[in-house]
C-alpha cells in the first residue's frame, strides 16, 4: 500500500487516464468516487484469440465505484454464468472495504458501463482478477481514509473502518461514512496496483461458506436471462441453416413460409430468416422453406477421425524435453506403448445461445448469453460496419457456458436482423442449432511410450499429443528422460476439423490426464506395485503428494496390486494452478458392460479458498459433469454433418449416475487463490478407466467408455 501513497496524495481529477481514450464513466454514474485498476497483464492476454484482443498494455479494465449513497460497486466485463463470481468477488470487496456484504454490487458484462474485458474463461476470475480487485479495494480504502482524515482532522493512523463508517479510534463519536465522503464528489483515480497477498485470516466473509447472492432470484423464476427479456414490438426469429458444415445454398423457395399468417421472411443474400411475434409460428415457417445446397464434405467421420488426425499435415513442436529418451529406453526393464483416443464433446448448456437486439436510431442495443460481451461488440462492429460507440452489449444471467459461450454468433445474427428489420429481434437458438454450431472440445490422439526399471522407477517418457494442446500434457512425475511433442492444426496447409472447436471446461486437460494416468497405472500394474505407492515413489511434486495422501485418507484407501477385483482407480494432475487427486470406486456389470461409479473422493490444493461453499459446489459439479465425457458424450458426425443434435442421442449425466462424492480442500490460507471451476473435471475419466481395469483386468484406451466398449475390452482379457 505504501508505494502508492505519494500518488494518492495528489488526487487525479482528470477524466483521462494515462495513455488511453476513456469513456466518461463518472458522467454515466452520476458522481461519487471511481478507482480504476488493471487486473490483467500481458500474459493473460495471450490466451485471448487474436481477433478479440485489444491493445491493453496501459489500459484500466475494471473499476470500483463508491456511490454518493455509500454503496459500492465493482464494474467488470466479466459475466456470471453459474460459476458464482457474482458472490465470491463481492465477498472480497466487502472484506477489503469493511462494508456489509449487502452494500456491494457486481456490475458485470455491460460494454457501456464496464471497462473492456476479453472474456470469462480459464478459471481466471478468482485467481487473477480477484487479487487485483482486492488490491484496488485496499487502495480505495486508503483514498477514503485520506479524505476522512482531512475531513474530521484525525491522522489516518488513528482511524478505523467498520460497516462503511470511518471513526477516530480514540473518539468513536468523531466519524464520517463512505456515503458522506462520496457525496458531491466527482473523483477518478487511476492506480497501478500489484495483486495483494496479505493474510486473509482477519476477513469477515472470505474463507467462510457463503450462499449465492443470486439464489433467491433463481429459485423464484425472477432471475432474468437473455431470453426472458421483452421489448414492445419484439419478434422471434429463426434462421435458415445449411444441413451440414461446408454446404452452400443454391436456391431457396420461401413461398411456403410467406403463406403463414403473422410471419415475415427476411432475406439478405444467402442469409434467410423468418420473424414473427409468435414463437411457434417461426418454428412452423422455417421448415416450409425449400432450399437446395451443394455439398463439399470433408472425408472424415467420428469413426475415422483419429487416423485422419495422425496423418494430417500439422505443426510439430517439442514442448519440453530433458535427458535422453533412447538412453532411458536402454535402462528399462519393461517398455509400454499405448495410443489413446478422445472424441469431440459438446458444451450442451441448458440455455441455448440466445440474443435480443434492438436498433434505435444509430444505436444497436444487444443483450446476449455470452462469455465475451466485448468480443461480441467487436464482432458486430466489424460485420455490420458500425462503431464501438454505437454498439452496446449487455449480459444478463447466462444459463451455463463451459467455454461454449465464448462464441457469440447468435449475437451477431440477432443484430443483423435488428438492423435489417428495425424491429427488436429475439433469437433463441434451437437445440439442433446449439449442437450444430457448438465449438466442440476437440477430438485428439495421444501416443505414449514409457518404461520402468526393475525397482519400479520410471526410466523414460516419450509423449506425442495430436490436437489436444498442451494443457495438462506435462509429465508431473519425476522422470529423468522425457519429451513432449505436440501436433497442432496448421490450418493453411490442412484443415483438420470440419466444424468449430474451442475451449471446453479445462480445455483438453482431461484428454492429457487420461493418457498420462492410464499409462502410469499400466506401469504400476506391470511392476506389481500398488498404484498409489507407484505414484508416490515416482513423484517429487510436494503439492501432488499432499493431494494424493489426503485423498487416500478421505477414501479410506487400502493399498493393493491391480487388477485386484475391487474396482478402485486413482488419477491426479493439475489445472489452472490447482492440484487435484481423485480416487473412485466402480461396479462393473460384466454381462452388459454397464459401469456405475459408486463413490469418488477428491482432494484439491487451490491456494486460498475464497468461498469454500462455492468451491465445493464447483468440485462436485466437475466430478458429476465428468461422468459425461467418461461414459457417454461423443459427437457423431459424417463430414460436416453433425449426427447428434439433441439430448435424445447425446446423453449428459443424470441424477441416477451420481456417485457419493467426498471432497477435501487443503488448507492453504497463506497462498494466493487459484482456479476452482475446472480442475476436478480432469482426472475422473482416468480414475474410472483405472478402476474398470482393477475390477475386470480390461483396459480401455478411449473415452467415452460406453457399455459396448467396456464389453469389448472385457472380451479381450
Amino acid at each position, binding site marked *: 500500500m505504501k508505494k502508492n501513497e505519494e500518488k494518492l496524495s495528489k488526487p487525479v481529477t482528470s477524466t483521462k487516464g494515462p495513455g488511453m481514450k476513456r469513456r466518461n464513466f463518472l458522467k454515466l454514474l452520476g458522481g461519487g468516487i471511481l478507482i480504476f485498476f488493471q487486473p490483467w497483464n500481458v500474459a493473460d492476454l495471450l490466451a485471448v484469440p487474436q481477433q478479440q484482443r485489444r491493445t491493453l498494455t496501459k489500459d484500466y479494465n475494471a473499476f470500483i465505484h463508491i456511490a454518493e449513497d455509500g454503496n459500492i460497486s465493482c464494474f467488470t466485463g466479466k459475466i456470471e454464468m453459474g460459476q458464482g463470481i457474482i458472490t465470491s468477488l463481492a465477498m472480497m470487496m466487502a472484506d477489503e472495504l469493511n462494508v456489509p456484504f449487502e452494500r456491494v454490487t457486481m456490475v458485470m458484462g455491460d460494454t457501456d458501463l464496464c471497462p473492456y474485458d476479453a472474456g470469462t474463461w480459464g478459471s481466471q476470475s478468482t485467481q487473477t482478477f480477484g487479487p487485483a480487485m482486492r488490491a484496488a479495494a485496499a487502495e480505495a480504502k486508503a483514498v477514503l481514509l485520506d479524505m476522512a482524515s482531512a475531513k474530521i482532522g484525525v491522522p489516518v493512523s488513528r482511524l478505523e473502518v467498520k460497516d462503511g463508517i470511518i471513526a477516530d479510534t480514540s473518539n468513536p463519536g468523531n466519524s464520517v461514512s463512505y456515503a458522506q465522503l462520496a457525496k458531491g464528489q466527482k473523483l477518478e483515480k487511476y492506480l497501478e496496483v500489484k495483486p495483494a497477498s496479505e493474510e486473509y485470516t482477519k476477513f469477515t466473509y472470505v474463507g467462510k461458506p457463503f450462499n449465492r447472492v443470486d439464489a433467491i432470484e433463481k429459485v423464484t423464476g425472477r432471475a432474468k*436471462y437473455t431470453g426472458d427479456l421483452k421489448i414492445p414490438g419484439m419478434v422471434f426469429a429463426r434462421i435458415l441453416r445449411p444441413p451440414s458444415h461446408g454446404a452452400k445454398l443454391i436456391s431457396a423457395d420461401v413461398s411456403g413460409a410467406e403463406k403463414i399468417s403473422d410471419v415475415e421472411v427476411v432475406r439478405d443474400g444467402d442469409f434467410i430468416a423468418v420473424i414473427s411475434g409468435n414463437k411457434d409460428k417461426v418454428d412452423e415457417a422455417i421448415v416450409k422453406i425449400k432450399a437446395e445446397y451443394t455439398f463439399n464434405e470433408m472425408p472424415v467421420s467420428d469413426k475415422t477421425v483419429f487416423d485422419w488426425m495422425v496423418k494430417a499435415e500439422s505443426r510439430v513442436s517439442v514442448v519440453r524435453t530433458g535427458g535422453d529418451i533412447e538412453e532411458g529406453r536402454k535402462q528399462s526393464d519393461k517398455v509400454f506403448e499405448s495410443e489413446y483416443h478422445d472424441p469431440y464433446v459438446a458444451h450442451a448448456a441448458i440455455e441455448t445461445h440466445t440474443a435480443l437486439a434492438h436498433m434505435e436510431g444509430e444505436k444497436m442495443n444487444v443483450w446476449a448469453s455470452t462469455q465475451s460481451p466485448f468480443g461480441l461488440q467487436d464482432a458486430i462492429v466489424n460485420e455490420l460496419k458500425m462503431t464501438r460507440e454505437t454498439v452496446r452489449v449487455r449480459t444478463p444471467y447466462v444459463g451455463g457456458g463451459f467455454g461454449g459461450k465464448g462464441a457469440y454468433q447468435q449475437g451477431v445474427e440477432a443484430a443483423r436482423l435488428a438492423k435489417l428489420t428495425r424491429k427488436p429481434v429475439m433469437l433463441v437458438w434451437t437445440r439442433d442449432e446449439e449442437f450444430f454450431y457448438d465449438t466442440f472440445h476437440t477430438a485428439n490422439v495421444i501416443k505414449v511410450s514409457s518404461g520402468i526399471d526393475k525397482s519400479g522407477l520410471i526410466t523414460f517418457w516419450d509423449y506425442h499429443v495430436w490436437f489436444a494442446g498442451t494443457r495438462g500434457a506435462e509429465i508431473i512425475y519425476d522422470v529423468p528422460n522425457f519429451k513432449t511433442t505436440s501436433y497442432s492444426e496448421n490450418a493453411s496447409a490442412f484443415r483438420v476439423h470440419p466444424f468449430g472447436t474451442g475451449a471446453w471446461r479445462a480445455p483438453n486437460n482431461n484428454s492429457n490426464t487420461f493418457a498420462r494416468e492410464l499409462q502410469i497405472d499400466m506401469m504400476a500394474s506391470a511392476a506389481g506395485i500398488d498404484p498409489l505407492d507407484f505414484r508416490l515413489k515416482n513423484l517429487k511434486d510436494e503439492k501432488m503428494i499432499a493431494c494424493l495422501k489426503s485423498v487416500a485418507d478421505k477414501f479410506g484407501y487400502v493399498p493393493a496390486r491391480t487388477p485386484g477385483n475391487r474396482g478402485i482407480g486413482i488419477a491426479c494432475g493439475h489445472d489452472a494452478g490447482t492440484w487435484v487427486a481423485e480416487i473412485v470406486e466402480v461396479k462393473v456389470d460384466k454381462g452388459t458392460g454397464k459401469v456405475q461409479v459408486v463413490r469418488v473422493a477428491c482432494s484439491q490444493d487451490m491456494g486460498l479458498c475464497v468461498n469454500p461453499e462455492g468451491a465445493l459446489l464447483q468440485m462436485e459439479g466437475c466430478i458429476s459433469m465428468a461422468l459425461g465425457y467418461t461414459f457417454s458424450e461423443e459427437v457423431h458426425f459424417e463430414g460436416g454433418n453433425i449426427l447428434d443434435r439433441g439430448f435424445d442421442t447425446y446423453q449428459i449425466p443424470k*441424477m441416477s449416475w451420481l456417485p457419493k462424492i467426498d471432497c477435501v480442500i487443503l488448507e492453504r490460507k497463506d497462498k494466493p487463490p487459484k482456479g476452482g471451476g475446472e480442475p476436478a473435471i480432469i482426472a475422473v475419466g482416468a480414475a474410472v478407466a483405472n478402476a474398470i481395469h482393477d475390477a475386470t483386468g480390461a483396459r480401455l484406451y478411449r473415452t467415452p467408455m460406453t457399455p459396448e466398449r467396456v464389453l469389448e475390452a472385457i472380451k479381450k482379457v
Partner: protein
Amino acid sequence: MEETIRFTLNGKKTELLTDPSQTLVWVLRNQLGLTGTKWGCGAGFCGACTVLLDGEPVRSCSLPVSDVAGKKVITIEGLEKKGKLHPVQKAFVEHDALQCGFCTPGMILTSVSLLQKNPSPTRQEVIEALDENLCRCTAHVRIIDAVMDASKVMKGGK
C-alpha cells in the same frame, strides 16, 4: 384461429384469447410474462420447461395450450405464498442447489410434485423422480440433498 382458453394459473382463474396450437411454454413466457418457465430443448428431453398440470409435472414445450383448458397450471412463480418461499425453494437456496439456475424452476416443480404425492421419499425415489431433468452445471448432489431436507421440513408442518 384464435380461441378463448380458460384455466387456473397459479391459483387464479385465467382467460386467454390465443392460438390454441401454440405451445404452453411460449404462451406462458411471451403472452403471460411468466418467464420463470425456461425453454431448453423443445423436445421434452431436458425438463427446463416443466410446469405442474393438475399436480403432475409436464413438459410445457410439448403441450399445446388448448390441452390445459379447464385444468390447473402451476409455474415457478406460483410457489411463493405471500412473499414466503415454498419449502423446496428455500431448501434449494440453503443447499446451494443451483449454479446457472436455468434448470432450477423445472427441478423445483418436479420435486414439489413428488413431495405432494410422496411426502417421505427415499433418496432413491428422489433420484428417480428427477432423473429426466437435466442439469449441466451438475448441482445434482445438492439438489437431492435439498429435496430430502424439504421433505423433512414439510412433514414438520413448517
